[in-house]
């Protein structure tokens, strides 16, 4: 059992952001974290999803593999990795905005990432995370290998959460 709990929350329609989230989760495991993987539910209605066969197919698959975030998850977590699609940030942003109602997020690490590190998708999430007391760890610029970058990011933010936790423990 690792000493750091990493919650990986993502929103994905066709699987691209899911792959980034899994890569970041794998990085967290490599850095000795315990992980939980959660997919945020769609805000779109069923008719909209049904009209897009590829979305529907991927949704059916992802609904088997992931549950939606539970209230206890962010309380359990030391670091929350937040993966959002490059062109949609509403689902993850809404999730982050709901966190302060579940308990104190002060001092936990929020680690947002998006395909291509798209700033227009990330900025609302940075803002929502900072507003509820999370320490925001930006993912930096995108690289030629987004999967490898996401894995390295997952490792880096786990180490960051570990350093913060140890620092806090040394004061108590």
């Amino acid at each position: 059992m690792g000493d750091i709990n990493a919650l990986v929350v993502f929103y994905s329609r066709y699987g691209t952001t899911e792959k980034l989230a899994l890569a970041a989760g794998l990085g967290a495991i490599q850095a000795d974290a315990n992980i939980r993987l959660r997919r945020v539910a769609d805000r779109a209605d069923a008719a909209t999803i049904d009209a897009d066969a590829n979305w529907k197919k991927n949704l059916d698959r992802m609904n088997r593999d992931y549950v939606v975030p539970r209230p206890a998850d962010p309380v359990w977590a030391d670091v929350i990795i937040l993966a959002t699609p490059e062109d949609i940030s509403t689902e993850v942003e809404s999730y982050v905005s709901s966190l302060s109602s579940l308990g104190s997020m002060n001092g936990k690490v929020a680690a947002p990432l998006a395909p291509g590190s798209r700033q227009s998708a990330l900025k609302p999430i940075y803002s929502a995370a900072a507003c509820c007391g999370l320490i925001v760890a930006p993912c930096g610029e995108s690289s030629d290998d987004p999967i490898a970058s996401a894995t390295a990011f997952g490792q880096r933010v786990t180490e960051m959460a570990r350093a913060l936790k140890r620092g806090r423990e040394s004061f108590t």
Partner: protein
Amino acid sequence: MLILRKAEERGKSDLGWLTSYHTFSFGGYTDPNHMGFRALRVLNDDRVAPGKGFGAHGHRDMEILSYVLEGKLAHKDSMGEEHVLGPNEVQAMSAGSGVIHSEFNGSDTEPTHFFQIWLIPESRGIKPSYQQFAYDPGEKRGTLRLIAGPDTNTDPPAAFIHQDARMYAAVLGDGETIHYPIPKGRHAWVQNAAGQIDVNGMTLKEGDGLAVSDETSLTLRGAGTAGGELLLFDLA
């Protein structure tokens, strides 16, 4: 010395879609007296409802074996492996530096019954890997069929694991007997997967396990009307 771990004394999880009996501490079941035996850390007797399963989750530094008794198990992992496993097939995954995987009942109509086995690897951070192989059920009839061990390129094939441990399977009819010598200093765990077997004169019913230390040999005999199916772990 033989120490019986009775089926009914195992930990139990019932999640509706999953009924799991834990020979050793696992998940929400913790008993400091049953944290494993030698390198054998987890021995779960799992029954998964049709279409249900274990969603995506992660592991590191564990040798994970799946032994299916009934039904199908659909596997998918972060190494890109995607397979369906049935009876008389073996899956071995070295989690090593880290894997994410899911395991689902591969059928929407039939339940799956399988043993999930974790062995502690001899070193940390090894490269993750996946192996799967099938064997003829006749190969475990009346004899110990090597399922997994530390030897590479065995004939017939067995899964390679990063630990000085061997797992065998055998199906024994009533009265059918196998002798297994235990080298000095080694230990064994016998798990009765189905039916009834006698081990050195001690009766094991379905789900019972037996810790074996300071013995020179095992006499494994099928008992009852139909005999039994057992898993034997030879451990350092």
